[in-house]
């Protein structure tokens, strides 16, 4: 359950309220790019069989075998925190005076007595007509795709930069170089990361035309970047950054069995 709790902690840091999509083989935590989120969107996916020994669900109908729920992420992470040293964990959708996600934890205890903690997390069921807004975001062809440096390092750099400027430029090239730049009237600060490595790009033609040293850059809100980095407590198995010049930056992470994608739009 440690990983699940880690995920819910991460989600709780990234989004106050998010949508949980339950389908027969996957669970998704979704934040769609509404104005309220400042244009940021998130898509987190995990395979249910990696986490649950028993999984049963029934969606709205056979063709739409999915359930979309809106909940406060912190509730879920707090509920799962209880499960840290649990014997068993059960999650159910219930209706106890209001619809909720009931997380039932059988706690381990010294004696043989059974101790059960139950958390009823209030949820809002999202009607089918709104589902289309909550689909997996299209990942546009990036100009540059690069592996990220150690996220903790990035976070401490960005944290300091936040005190100087409210927006920053993230730029990278196909030569494994990534820069974080801030600029004010009085001062310019740039942090250079080198030798990061680039994954092979999907479309060959783009990469051939492009000068490997040429930077693709995006101007973004520094707080959004910081919020994303703050959610990463553990270093991911794989971390990728895709930049579409002047449009957005897309972070693609893999934490063991969980994939997380985070999109930050460019400042207009």
């Amino acid at each position: 359950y440690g990983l699940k709790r880690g995920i819910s902690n991460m989600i709780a840091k990234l989004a106050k309220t998010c949508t949980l999509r339950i389908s027969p083989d996957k669970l998704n935590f979704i934040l769609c790019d509404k104005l309220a989120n400042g244009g940021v969107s998130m898509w987190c996916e995990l395979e249910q069989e990696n986490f649950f020994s028993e999984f049963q669900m029934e969606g709205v109908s056979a063709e739409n075998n999915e359930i979309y729920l809106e909940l406060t992420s912190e509730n879920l992470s707090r509920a799962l925190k209880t499960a840290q040293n649990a014997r068993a964990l059960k999650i159910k959708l219930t209706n106890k005076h209001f619809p909720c996600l009931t997380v039932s934890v059988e706690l381990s205890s010294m004696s043989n007595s059974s101790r059960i903690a139950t958390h009823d997390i209030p949820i809002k069921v999202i009607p089918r007509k709104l589902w289309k807004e909550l689909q997996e975001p299209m990942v546009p062809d990036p100009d540059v795709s690069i592996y990220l440096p150690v996220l903790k390092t990035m976070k401490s750099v960005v944290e300091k930069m936040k005190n100087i400027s409210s927006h920053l430029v993230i730029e990278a090239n196909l030569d494994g170089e990534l820069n974080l730049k801030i600029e004010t009237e009085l001062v310019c600060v740039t942090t250079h990361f080198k030798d990061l490595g680039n994954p092979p790009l999907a479309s060959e033609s783009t990469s051939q035309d492009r000068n490997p040293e040429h930077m693709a850059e995006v101007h973004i809100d520094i707080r959004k970047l910081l919020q994303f980095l703050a959610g990463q407590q553990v270093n991911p198995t794989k971390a990728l950054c895709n930049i579409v010049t002047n449009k957005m930056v897309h972070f693609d992470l893999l934490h063991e069995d969980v994939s997380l994608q985070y999109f930050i739009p460019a400042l207009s």
Partner: protein
Amino acid sequence: MKCLVTGGNVKGECGSAWRRRCNTLGTASLTPSALLPAVLGKAVHSLSRIGDELYLEPLEDGLSLRTVNSSRSAYACFLFAPLFFQHYQAATPGQDLLRCKILMKSFLSVFRSLAMLEKTVEKCCIALNGQSSRLVVQLHCKFGVRKTHNLSFQDCESLQAVFDPASCPHMLRAPARVLGEAVLPFPPSLAEVTLGIGRGRRVILRSYHEEEADSTVKAMVTEVCLGEEDFQQLQAQEGAAITFCLKEFRGLLSFAESANLNLSIHFDAPGRPAIFTIKDSLLDGDFVLATLSETDSYSQDLGSLERHRPVPQLQAHSTPHPDDFANDDIDSYMIAMETTIGNEGSRVLPSISLSPGPQPPQSPGPASEEEDEAEPSTVPGTPPPKKFRSLFFGSILAPVGSPHGPSPVLAEDSEGEG
């Protein structure tokens, strides 16, 4: 008054004499190596969760530290037996017993760092200096460092609450550790919790949220269910339930956990105060907390473990206002103290003039031998008078079990339920 607390790990003669004494007394829970200044400090931390003023009273029974919260819905008291101290002198011969009231903040500042108390303080000396009106707390630390705190205090009357655990029909007792683990799933910010007995004599703790009519965001409900076997004693009917302030309870709980003691909870019907006690050969702790009334329908549901929508008027009861005394029983207890005429030693409590309150008193008219119905004679809207007068109970009234704690036990007559 002068008393001296020694850290159990003090080397040399006084340390070993102390250890010998502890061993003969068989203090299993407070081991000789327990650092007593730190224990005192932890008690002060606990009390600081309740009130802003600390009433310090040296008694023959020991040193009592008491406090009450501003809305007078919570009272807490620690009594340190004379054996807790290496040297305890309640009063200089020929002098009256001094009592004082000091700002909790000031006293807490002396004991703020528990780590420091545990590691560096070898002796702690507390003395009440009547002439200079100062409470002197001296910490003798390692390397010859001595810290002296001179705290100003106010004379005051004794703060005493009237409560009798024996009169409560329901009680449960468990190691503090078990209760500590049980409250872990609840968010730290949760204000109130409901404790009840469910089907199969399972003990249930559930987060309590006041229902807000127009709130669209519902709060998460957390419930913890413990089996009877987790408790050393469980004497309660199924369906019995009370709702009290979790934050205040945590104060006593953390102390009890650190001292590895058992915690007893005595309670009655909803609305009647709940009494939380810890007991040891060296100290006693009593926390008396008000409980919400009107949880009747809730306790019926408890058996089926279903969430209950609380009665809307609960809003009024949950945070007792100073002038809302009618349903807040704990407050009645406090007022009982307050309005007595100061004839100390008198066996008869004078009748208290009753102001027309929202709820007429239920007990028969002021019987001279009985505890009075405590409607305060304050004008609604004014804050309650802070001054507490002393009630010298001595041997009034009735069935007192073994006198326990600083305030002799009084059988409180039933005030009836609204």
